[in-house]
């Protein structure tokens, strides 16, 4: 089902089946619903066998980049020379994204199980779940589930009598979006500022505590238990060849029924907006959609027939990102929306790279000037110039992230900017 609303395409709901059902948070009912069956299977398998199933399933990273999960796991050393670590990225903070919190608060044991199976696949001895600080209520739910799982000896020493040991620690951040970038997360986890670093070395070579590490998103890991019990082919009954499986769509903005819905990858964006989410609030017309969270290029109403897959949205000139459409109706002041989004990135820049620290702030300032009537026509050229300066020149992609919504809004809604600038000076 979806949350808080259900929808008609419930056949393919595997992650969200128990959303809204508080009893699924507790271990006893959960094991009765098939919980930890994947782990039982995993403890009887060798790490490469687990990785092979996930590879065959075609599961791709659900945190935004869409990297094939099984392939990522296979980068970890096959013959360990010391500890390996798994980090579960629960630092969800992309504007528009609120899917991982539904996993944390409704099916915490599903996430724990996925973490343990992944840990076995990459030969990790310790899992760290890094949850964003603000998610206190959901962290409490996760904490209770972790303690339950420890008490039931599903985590810790000799898991399920297999002789295999694995620990798990929940660790919370303190309000830094950039801790969601994988190298930023690792810097933060080991006790530092959440500053990203250049890759290589890649986490699989040198990650937390200088050891081989894999970082996976919450939704990615939550999909693993059922891939293991159901098999790769079973998972591939949903989605497309290049984007198999189901995806949590968290839909916000001017919608009749905003919320989180699990859908097979490939449903046209238009159907998600009009059928699943009930269309635009108050029967108004659609103006634009930011389809994959605030760091993706916005689409106009006539660009929404594309299938909602990694490749489909890329072809449409945007990106699936975190599958978080932010929907805007015809009355929206688009310049104000892009300004507020730019302010977010300016606030969250870690400050290491000049282009990002200064550039994001200048984008916000110029947009504010245009919005409040002090804009000049040459500001549009300056904004395009800033788009150039902010692309591909920094350690991480935070700077690039502000460019996607900004440039696409300038290209597709230039008239909105010009109207605010008026006949003003050049």
């Amino acid at each position: 089902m979806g949350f808080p609303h259900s929808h008609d395409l419930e056949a393919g709901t595997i992650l969200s089946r128990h959303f809204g059902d508080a009893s699924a948070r507790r271990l006893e009912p959960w094991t009765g619903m098939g919980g930890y069956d994947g782990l039982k299977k995993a403890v009887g398998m060798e790490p490469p066998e687990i990785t092979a199933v996930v590879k065959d399933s075609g599961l791709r990273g659900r945190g935004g980049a869409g990297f094939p999960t099984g392939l990522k796991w296979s980068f970890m050393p096959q013959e360990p020379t010391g500890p390996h670590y798994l980090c579960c990225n629960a630092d969800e903070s992309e504007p528009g994204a609120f899917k991982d919190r539904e996993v944390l608060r409704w099916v915490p044991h599903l996430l724990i199980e996925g973490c343990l199976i992944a840990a076995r696949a990459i030969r990790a001895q310790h899992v760290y779940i890094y949850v964003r600080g603000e998610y206190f209520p959901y962290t409490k739910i996760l904490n209770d589930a972790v303690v339950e799982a420890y008490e039931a000896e599903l985590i810790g020493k000799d898991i399920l009598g297999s002789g295999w040991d694995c620990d798990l620690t929940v660790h919370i951040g303190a309000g830094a979006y950039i801790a969601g970038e994988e190298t930023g997360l690792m810097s933060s986890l080991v006790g530092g500022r959440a500053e990203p670093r250049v890759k290589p070395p890649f986490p699989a070579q040198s990650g937390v505590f200088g050891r081989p590490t894999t970082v996976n998103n919450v939704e990615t890991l939550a999909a693993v238990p059922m891939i293991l019990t159901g098999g790769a082919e079973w998972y591939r009954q949903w989605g497309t060849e290049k984007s198999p499986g189901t995806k949590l769509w968290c839909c916000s903005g001017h919608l009749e029924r905003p919320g989180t819905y699990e859908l097979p990858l490939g449903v046209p964006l238009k159907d998600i907006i009009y059928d699943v989410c009930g269309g635009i609030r108050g029967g108004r017309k659609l103006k634009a959609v930011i389809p994959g969270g605030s760091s993706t290029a916005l689409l106009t109403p006539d660009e929404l027939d594309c299938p909602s897959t990694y490749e489909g949205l890329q072809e449409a000139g945007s990106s699936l990102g975190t599958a978080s459409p932010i929907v805007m109706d015809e009355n929206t002041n688009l310049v104000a929306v892009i300004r507020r989004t730019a302010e977010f990135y300016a606030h969250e820049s870690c400050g290491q790279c000049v282009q990002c620290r200064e550039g994001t702030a200048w984008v916000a300032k110029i947009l504010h000037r245009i919005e409040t009537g002090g804009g000049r026509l040459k500001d549009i050229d300056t904004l395009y110039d800033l788009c150039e300066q902010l692309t591909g020149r920094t350690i991480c992609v935070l700077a690039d992230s502000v460019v996607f919504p900004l440039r696409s809004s300038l290209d597709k809604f230039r008239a909105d900017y010009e109207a605010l600038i008026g006949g003003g000076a050049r």
Partner: protein
Amino acid sequence: MSDRKNEGIHPAVVSAQPFQLASRRPVDRLFGDGEGCDRLEKAISRYPEKKAALLPMLAYAQERNGWISPDAMEEIAGALELTPAYVRSVATFYTMYNKHPTGRNIIQVCTCTACHLCGADDVFEAFLAATGTRPGEMSEDERFMVMEAECLGACGFATAVQVNDRYFENVTPESVADVLAALEVEEEA
């Protein structure tokens, strides 16, 4: 705070305790009692390097005192064999760590992209008016502090408002009074 007794906090979750609470005690020594020592020891036990217990200990200081005093930073530095300057450089990076005393109820109104679309600016103004404060300033009775927040991750439930360790969703200017009333009931309890 969770229902479990403090001594009973499982080491696996000691680094994930809510640290923005209405209840707090005056600034005291962090590691001068059993509770503080227990937290420190358990946190250190979860990582191969002591330094990794830094964020959990900063959070603990705030959970205990409502903010992280310079003395607390020094004490943490000593306990984790770090310099006070390093601890400060980390503490100041993260926006959720309070470097000054705050009002008992920190009201964070999400005004980011999705909430902005759904009228969050009006909700923010309504909170300021109802508490008689300016952004980021403590009210005279020290009960409230109202701030704009970056995305709180509840975009489908706009406007999202966080007060200490709680979320309020679908808040409108009209329901601001209800939120404040709920806080009052809690304070009296």
